[in-house]
């Protein structure tokens, strides 16, 4: 995706602030964040509620623009982009996974996965081919025609992950992806993220659960809109026997 040299980080924030105005009160959600994320990293952003981690997520995900400072994604400065350009960046460079899955109701899994490609202007045949491949990657090829209401929470989140990776994004941004899942399913979902990471994808994940953060390679902790700590770790292996068996069971069941 990048045209610059490999030394250029994929995600690069430089003194980024975000100030919300709520009536007379000014809320400094981000009070000057400088950080960079290299291609192929697996970053977990932690922090209590109000620490600014969600705002950081929104900025990295190009859903929101910084009040001041510069944000470069894949070498492109997005700080001064308009709504239409940001939409295009999201479509080409980013994939989202949300806490509440946010799949379109009464729409089949494969059609949900196709959604980013619809706005990329791909032909129907190409969309279907790529969407089915993405579903296969998360182990849900057999559930392609199921609607979200016919899928379990873990399966729904895997459909959402397939949707996030179908456009071959530079970064997958996940906001509390395990927040609505039980602990066993959470580990299964984390196993998928690790798999994607090992395949070369860059993953930025927000969570407030420390045991989820164990599966990441780097933990950034936020407090009061600032980076409190930034540490590397050896990630725990989520593809332990019990978790790794889950996708296989899925396919066998259907």
């Amino acid at each position: 995706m990048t045209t610059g040299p490999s030394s250029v980080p994929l995600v690069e924030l430089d003194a980024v602030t975000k100030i919300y105005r709520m009536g007379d009160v000014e809320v400094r959600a981000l009070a000057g964040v400088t950080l960079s994320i290299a291609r192929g990293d697996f970053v977990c952003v932690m922090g209590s509620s109000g620490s600014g981690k969600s705002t950081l997520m929104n900025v990295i995900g190009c859903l929101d623009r910084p009040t001041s400072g510069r944000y470069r994604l894949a070498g492109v400065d997005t700080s001064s982009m308009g709504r239409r350009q940001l939409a295009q960046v999201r479509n080409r460079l980013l994939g989202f996974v949300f806490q509440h899955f946010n799949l379109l109701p009464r729409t089949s899994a494969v059609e949900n996965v196709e959604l980013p490609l619809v706005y990329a202007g791909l032909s129907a045949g190409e969309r279907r081919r790529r969407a089915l491949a993405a579903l296969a990657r998360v182990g849900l090829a057999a559930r392609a025609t199921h609607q979200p209401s016919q899928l379990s929470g873990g399966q729904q989140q895997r459909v959402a992950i397939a949707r996030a990776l179908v456009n071959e994004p530079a970064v997958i941004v996940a906001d509390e992806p395990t927040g609505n899942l039980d602990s066993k399913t959470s580990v299964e979902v984390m196993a998928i993220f690790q798999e994607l990471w090992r395949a070369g994808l860059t993953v930025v994940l927000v969570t407030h659960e420390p045991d989820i953060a164990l599966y990441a390679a780097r933990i950034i902790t936020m407090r009061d809109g600032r980076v409190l700590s930034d540490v590397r770790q050896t990630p725990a292996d989520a593809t332990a026997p019990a978790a790794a068996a889950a996708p296989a069971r899925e396919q066998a069941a259907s």
Partner: protein
Amino acid sequence: MRINQTMRLAGSALVRNSMRSLLTALGVVIGVGAVIAMEAIGEGAKTRVAETFEAMGTNLLIILPGSSSAGGLQGGSGTQPTLTWDDLGAIENELPAVRTAAAVLRAAATVQSDEQNWTTSVVGTSPSYFTIRAWTTVLGRPFDQGDVDAGAKVVLLGATAVEKLFGRDADPVGQVVRIKHMPFQVIGVLARKGQSPMGQDYDDTAIVPLTTFQAKIQGGLSKFIGGVIFVSATAADQTARALSEITTLLRDRHHLAPGADDDFSVRNLAEIASAQQEGTRVLTTLLAAIAAVSLVVGGIGIMNIMLVSVTERTREIGVRMAVGAQPADILSQFLVEALTLSVVGGLCGVALGYTAARQLAARFHWPTIFRPEIVLVAMGFSALVGVVFGLYPASKASRLDPIEALRFE
């Protein structure tokens, strides 16, 4: 996003809430249906009025003699003969806006055939009467000036008179009927004209030469015309001018002092016709306007449901934006939904309006005319309603903030 994709999306969204879509479209169905039906009925009424006046004669004016007054008691128009035969000659020959004129004398008389008798309106007039009233014969021939000069005992019968005396579709030409016990040879049958605007049957008549009428049926004063004068103006837009010319001429000939009342009156039928047409037109416009109001109400229904839909699908909009939908994509998605509702509603409305107009025509014998171009107008209007009332909800959707939309519960 391509347009066929957008349309498929709108279609599936509407089908998903099929009952709601149906009820929303119903507003437009009724609105368009009402417009179409009102148009068809109005157009029919207008044409019937035009036809009725057409039947009375072309560019027709009627001059009636004045009223008699005795001891402060005024009789109505025509109670006193004031029009002379010389007046008629002058009107016919001296006025540029007058094409031709004919005296029309009328009396009720019993006509007898061999089997039947029938009391009808017997008219004595000159051949130009047929020109003035644009009245042709379907059988035989009309009488000519020769018949008038000779005082020939010939008669032309109206369709109703033929029916009563000889039976339906009979050919009485060459037969003899008796009017006031005098034999008249039937030389022609007049084309059917139908009813006058007041419901009088034009075809219930027998027409004889003027001279014959005076000599055999109802003798009159030699100087005055015992009836009215029918005048045909040179063109439809010349009737008002003909009227003023006639008035000036007759006041002059009758030596009326300035300020004195006319001792005659002139009816401008063309004017009455256009007034009637105007009345019909106003009524049609009014009905169509009321129908159009219901179309607007239908449009508000669409706006209402689209706003509900945008609110309901706020998260969906957020997701679409997050994965890269442009504001224009969201706008067109909701706009096409509104348009689909209104255009499909419009199509059904055309069918409903057409059916309703046909039913009314059949049940109440109303004349209805269905103009094909009104379908295009109605479709254009319903599309306009869709755009106008769909634009606000659609632009509201496209201006949503993706973060807030995703957070919407």
